């Protein structure tokens, strides 16, 4: 039972009395006018404050776990070090609010307006911020791991040294955002706008960047994705130490910079251009090579060393060919093999939206990582690795 009733709380606030340190758990104060009220160190766990007017209210160190604050007006409220774990702040107005060191783990902030809010060192792990506005918000050192920030507006936000591991930033707008030393390990940045963002020393290991916009981004000393980067949009990026735009990088080098896979020697790259035709050939590519095929290959065998990258470009056609070995294969063009397994032992197989793949695929011993984009054409039989299949059939018999 709460220490005070809702009426008593409203009366106290009306006459300018503080309700600090009170036990107000589960209290219902929907749409109440509580502007500038002081709830310091109050226990408001599970309280219903839906649509309440709480601008400039003081909630410093208060506990608001699982509180219902949907649509609440919390503009310039002080929620420093407040515990809002699992709170529902759907569509809440938090413009200019102080949420420094607040705990928002698992909170629902979908569609909330946090423009100019202060969230340094805040805990937002697994919070939902889809469609939220965080323009010019201060989030330095915040924990945003596994958060959903899809379509969120983070333009000019300060995300220095934030942890965005595994975060979903699909179609988020991060134009001119500060992301220095940020950890974006395994984050999804598909179609995100990172134009002019400062990504110096950021860690992008395993991040997905398809369709992301990077024009004018500062990328000096960033840690790349560790895998080939395809489909990004960028006219140039800034690789200067001091972000002075003095070192502009253009063209395919941008993707290499973002992947962190700039080969030490160009001899590791192999390109088969349009118009070339190879028949009945056996090709071997060493570990770490990057191969791109825009030609017509017929009845060829292609052996890939471990980690070798093979890209069948849009114009590439591989007919009756077999690709063997622990490489990573990406198909934007066509691959057709109707006789035996066409791809054997690849560690990764990506078929893009324009890709066309007909044939059998024998997976790697440790299984193959697959990715298929909507729009691709597949007539595929997936098989286990030969050894695996033999063991299975042995067991069955």
């Amino acid at each position: 039972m709460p220490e005070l009733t809702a009426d008593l709380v409203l009366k106290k606030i009306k006459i300018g009395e503080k309700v600090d340190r009170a036990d107000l758990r589960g209290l219902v104060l929907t749409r109440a006018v509580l502007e500038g009220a002081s709830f310091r160190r109050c226990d408001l766990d599970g309280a219903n404050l839906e649509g309440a007017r709480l601008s400039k209210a003081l909630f410093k160190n208060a506990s608001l776990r699982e509180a219902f604050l949907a649509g609440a007006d919390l503009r310039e409220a002080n929620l420093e070090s407040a515990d809002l774990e699992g709170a529902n702040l759907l569509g809440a107005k938090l413009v200019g609010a102080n949420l420094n060191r607040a705990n928002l783990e698992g909170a629902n902030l979908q569609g909330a307006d946090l423009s100019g809010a202060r969230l340094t060192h805040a805990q937002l792990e697994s919070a939902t911020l889809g469609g939220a506005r965080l323009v010019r918000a201060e989030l330095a050192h915040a924990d945003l791991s596994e958060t959903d920030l899809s379509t969120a507006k983070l333009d000019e936000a300060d995300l220095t040294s934030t942890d965005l591991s595994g975060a979903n930033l699909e179609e988020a707008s991060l134009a001119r955002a500060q992301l220095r030393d940020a950890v974006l390990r395994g984050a999804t940045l598909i179609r995100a706008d990172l134009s002019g963002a400062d990504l110096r020393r950021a860690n992008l290991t395993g991040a997905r960047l398809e369709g992301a916009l990077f024009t004018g981004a500062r990328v000096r000393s960033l840690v790349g994705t560790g895998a080939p980067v395809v489909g990004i949009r960028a006219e140039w990026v800034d690789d200067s130490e001091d972000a002075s735009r003095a070192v502009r990088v253009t063209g395919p080098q941008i993707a290499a910079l973002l992947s962190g896979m700039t080969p030490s020697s160009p001899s590791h790259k192999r390109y088969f251009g349009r118009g070339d035709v190879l028949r009945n050939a056996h090709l071997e590519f060493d570990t770490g090579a990057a191969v791109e095929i825009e030609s017509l290959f017929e009845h060829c065998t292609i052996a890939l060393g471990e980690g070798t990258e093979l890209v069948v470009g849009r114009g590439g056609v591989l007919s009756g060919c077999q690709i063997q070995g622990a490489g990573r294969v990406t198909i934007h063009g066509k691959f057709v093999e109707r006789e035996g397994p066409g791809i054997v032992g690849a560690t990764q197989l990506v078929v893009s939206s324009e890709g066309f793949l007909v044939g059998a695929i024998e997976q790697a011993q440790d299984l193959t990582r697959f990715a298929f984009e909507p729009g691709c054409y597949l007539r595929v039989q997936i098989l286990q690795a030969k050894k695996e299949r033999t063991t299975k059939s042995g067991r069955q018999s």
Partner: protein
Amino acid sequence: MSEPMHGMQGRRTLVEEGTSFKGSLSSTCPVEVKGRVEGDVTAPALSVSASGSVHGKVKVGEMQSHGELAGEFDADVVQLSGSVKDRTIIRAKSLEVKLSPAEGKMQVVFGECQLEVGSEAARSELAARSAEALVRSNEKAAKGSSVPPEQVAKAPSTAPEPPKASVRPPTDANGA
């Protein structure tokens, strides 16, 4: 993190976790499976959660699976993660499987299965586009203008010298 499919909003039929359903399930509203379904399912949409499994014949408009699938699945649009068991067939007009990070968990673990994805129209369109690309490349080759992009080395030393501009008819080369 994936968004719910269009068809999964509003009212739906739910097979809750811990529930096992055997038989034929036909619904006019979307079906959500958190438990186990063995049998045939017909519905406008099907969602299988990570704890869910569907074994049988399924015919739906949209399908999103994070759980276990086995059997025969016909759908217009499929979003797939989780696992696909041996002897499974998935037929769809559109399939999406997202790439998992190299060090992370597998997005989908495929058993021995079959994928038939893309409509005949898409196939023809792709074939036509590819044929067009080949014709263009032949024209370029005839003019001797096959040039690799900047800073990319030409064919490897291990590769045989490619013959100049002899291409079989585009329709064959496309495998169409």
